[in-house]
């Protein structure tokens, strides 16, 4: 299961498992984002390369307008996936405390 929605504070809340079967849902939401956005991964348990592709595609689109994604509350497993993928150099990432 994967859920994505706006929180009251404007952040984008992601929950569950972002696997290849959930990409259409995630991409559809991400395509509606404009400007600077914060993705809150506190409830996201898992991400695969398919999910990484959506983040990358969105970051590239937003970079065209000098904005981008900030990702917060990243669990240690996903954080290491980001590190292996070199995402820590192209995203502003904050680990879960």
């Amino acid at each position, binding site marked *: 299961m994967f859920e994505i929605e706006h929180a009251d504070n404007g952040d984008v809340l992601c929950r569950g498992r972002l696997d*290849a079967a959930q990409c259409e849902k995630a991409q559809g939401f991400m395509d509606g984002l404009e400007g600077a956005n914060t993705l809150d991964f506190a409830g996201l348990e*898992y991400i*695969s*390369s398919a999910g990484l592709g959506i983040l*990358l*595609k969105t970051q*590239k689109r937003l970079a065209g307008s000098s904005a981008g994604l900030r990702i917060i509350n990243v669990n240690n*497993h996903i954080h290491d996936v980001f590190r*292996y993928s070199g995402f820590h*150099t192209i995203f502003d990432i904050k680990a879960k405390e």
Partner: protein
Amino acid sequence: MNRDFPRHLDSLAPLYDFTEDILEASDISPGVRFPVHLAMEELFVNMVKYNPDVHSDIVVSVTVIDTDTVTVVLVDDGGVEFDVTAERKVNIDAPLAERTPGGLGIHLIQNLADKLEYRYKDGRGEVIFTKGSGNEDV
């Protein structure tokens, strides 16, 4: 334990449940579970994506070798040869403008595996991914 899964993305949820039930029953640590699930998905999706005209099920097995080492095997009967152990160039230091989506799945598996094997003969591909707690990194 073996199970056959239909060759489409709708199989990912039952594939996760099948794997998680086995890992849960053996009390496998989260540091092993995460890469096992990741490898399972990446390998399965690869077999689906690169064989659009093949309709046979993909046979998956999960084995807990000892207290905290897991081996997963995926058998793809009728698919094209795709050596997941072959070296692939992925520049993880490239700036955003030079990045393109794709290619990270195999890169991640190769980095997360303790051991990764691939065999292909007579149209039958077999991938064996092994992960133990002695090399936890995610």
